[in-house]
């Protein structure tokens, strides 16, 4: 099977060939990049479109096993393919959690029939309870790319230090959900004017920043890599920027909603705006944008967190936290962050691949043919019925967004072709 992509603008900051190039794919591998590449069984006309190395999402929730009413690996990866993702890292807070090699193997078994590549992240502590280390060695051997108790912080600093060192033993690292739950308490949105006016308990920025500070110090002292998840505050960006300048081995991500919405979005008590960390202030939104543009924030991860309607169409304080994010991440970045395709490629492809150390993030001869094609100028209005994920919980319904993924190709296989998802 030979697949050819013709006439597109190749954006490839980590590769040698860029610009107007045709790409020939054979048996799942990039065979050639250039002009006049010969015949193919199928040709994608990418004229006027932009061709990226496949997007890689470092943070999503596929909900399987145990929470299939929210999402499963099949539906979640279909949504990921529609969003342009060729690989995703799924968090371990399933039921049961991915805290041993057997559950990890189950996820990978299901993922063999998925639309995109799935890299599981294993739990750092047993049952995500923050008390005992998991068998990280075995999980790494089976296929876990990193470890995290995402959804919860590792509250005990001694346990966090041990988890970082134990993960490093097996060439892995910790992805940290940063929240001091003694500070965040019963909070359900950002603490500030809007939480006061709405009478909702607030979550101070300090809940996140205090834990970021702790983990930066641990990373510095231990000289180990830590990855900070879903950074949402200006103070977090500032501390990470300073730490990077001092040579601390820190990487981090943010999610599209943190540079697209502020806490004024919560004023209708619409639980679709409820997310953890919470939407912050306009100043934070601006700092997140700056952090992404100056390289402090390495990548955009979706934190795709699908929920059932019954868990969202209720009182704000009782609603589940999270936004269904695969299908809008790229267009939100185009609309609210930058038009610059090189920057987008770094944030969606190059840096995520580098952080978890997998093949990808580059289009070059001999590499796996993971490719995302987008029309940067086309626009669409997001409608609930068009969402492929089981989780329709997004505050962006009704928004008209520019930047449309038209094709997603995984190992040379077209998993999304602009119409309905393929499989």
């Amino acid at each position, binding site marked *: 099977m030979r697949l050819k992509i013709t006439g597109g603008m190749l954006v490839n900051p980590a590769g040698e060939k860029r610009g107007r190039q045709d790409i020939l794919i054979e048996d799942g591998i990039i065979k050639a990049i250039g002009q006049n590449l010969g015949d193919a069984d199928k040709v994608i006309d990418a004229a006027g479109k932009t061709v990226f190395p496949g997007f890689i999402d470092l943070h999503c929730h596929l909900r399987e096993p145990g929470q299939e009413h929210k999402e499963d690996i099949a539906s979640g990866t279909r949504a990921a393919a529609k969003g342009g993702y060729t690989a995703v890292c799924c968090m371990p807070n399933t039921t049961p959690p991915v805290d041993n090699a057997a559950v990890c193997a189950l996820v990978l078994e299901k993922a063999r029939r998925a639309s995109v590549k799935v890299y599981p992240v294993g739990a750092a502590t047993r049952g995500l309870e923050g008390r005992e280390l998991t068998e990280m060695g075995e999980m790494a051997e089976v296929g876990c790319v990193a470890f995290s108790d995402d959804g919860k912080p590792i509250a005990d600093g001694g346990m966090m230090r041990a988890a970082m060192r134990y993960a490093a033993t097996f060439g892995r690292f910790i992805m940290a959900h940063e929240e001091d739950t003694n500070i965040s308490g019963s909070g359900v949105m950002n*603490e*500030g*004017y809007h*939480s*006061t*006016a*709405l*009478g*909702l*308990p*607030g979550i*101070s920025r300090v809940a996140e920043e205090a834990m970021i500070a702790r983990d930066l110090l641990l990373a510095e002292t231990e000289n180990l890599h830590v990855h900070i998840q879903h950074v949402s505050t200006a103070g977090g960006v500032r501390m990470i920027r300073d730490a990077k300048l001092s040579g601390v081995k820190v990487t981090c991500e943010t999610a599209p909603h943190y540079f697209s919405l502020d806490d004024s979005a919560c004023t*209708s*008590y619409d639980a679709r705006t409820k997310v953890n960390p919470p939407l912050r202030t306009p100043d934070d939104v601006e700092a997140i944008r700056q952090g992404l543009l100056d390289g402090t924030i390495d990548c955009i991860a979706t934190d795709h967190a699908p929920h059932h309607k*019954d868990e969202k*169409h*209720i*009182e*704000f*304080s*009782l609603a589940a936290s999270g936004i269904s994010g695969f299908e809008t991440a790229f267009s939100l970045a185009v609309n609210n962050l930058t038009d610059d395709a090189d920057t987008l490629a770094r944030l969606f492809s190059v840096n995520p691949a580098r952080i978890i150390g997998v093949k990808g993030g580059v289009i070059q001869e001999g590499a796996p043919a993971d490719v995302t094609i987008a029309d940067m100028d086309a626009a669409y209005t997001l409608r609930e019925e068009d969402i492929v994920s089981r989780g329709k919980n997004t505050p962006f319904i009704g928004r008209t967004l520019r930047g449309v993924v038209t094709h997603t190709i995984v190992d040379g296989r077209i998993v999304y072709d602009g119409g309905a998802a393929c499989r």
Partner: protein
Amino acid sequence: MKLRSKDMLGLYDTTAEEIKLILDSAGTMKQLLAQNAKKMPHLQGKSIVALFYEDSTRTRLSFELAAKFLGATFSNLGVSSSSVKKGETLLDTGKTIAAMETDVIVIRHPLGGAPKFLADNFPGSVINAGDGMHEHPTQALLDMFTMRERFGRLEGLKVSIIGDIYHSRVARSNVWGLTKMGAHVTLCGPQTLMPAAIEQMGVNVTCNLEHALRDADVVMGLRIQRERLQGVFLSTLREYHRYFGIHEDSIRLCEKDVLIMHPGPVNRGVELSSAVMDADNSVINEQVTNGVAVRMALLYLLTRKDDKR
């Protein structure tokens, strides 16, 4: 003039003109009550249901009397606050009540925004009788009615609200209402009980009771919930009373005719000393009387709008 919304969810969404309309109508209702005409036809044929997820004595009774004086059918659906997290959802409860041809739901709920959620999913009117830390609009309306009755105006009045501002829906509703009507509001309490960015609501904020009391026309104490606050937001009640209690010593900073108010129920000797509470310038019982009149006016105005639709 009519109210714009089918619901009364809070004074944040209510205009100065609407507030004036409600207070004026309440004046009429109070006159009728004073004539001992406690059976009027305004709400005949209407069905009102009280849905209280939190305990209440005066607010629920006040709504019940207001509804009955105006000829409505009034029913209580007793629910405990534990059923917020288990059992039937608010959405389903609302649909059930709607299916019984209910015109108005009066709701009290421990979570901010619950009345708004109900109102979005209920065709009739929803009146917020207190939601979490958000709003308690009818309390603020009766407070403003009481002040206006005494001073003849709200504009330019200096109103100091003292105590647990953080948890107080009464404080928030009074701030929105009073500032819209041109009054100057000062909030006073320990910093642990002051919500974030509260000054952006257009009020003065102080931790010094002296500053709050001096020059005040109205001093309103707020209830201190002992169980919830002691040790976490406050040290001892003794110390609270010393620095934030309105008692014989601190009240000397005020003019003699300062109005003493409290939404009740009062912890005697904590927010207010007994002597202050029972003094001539305390209008705490007057507030209760006015509460019935204000709720009659609101029920009338909301259901009247319904008829015109």
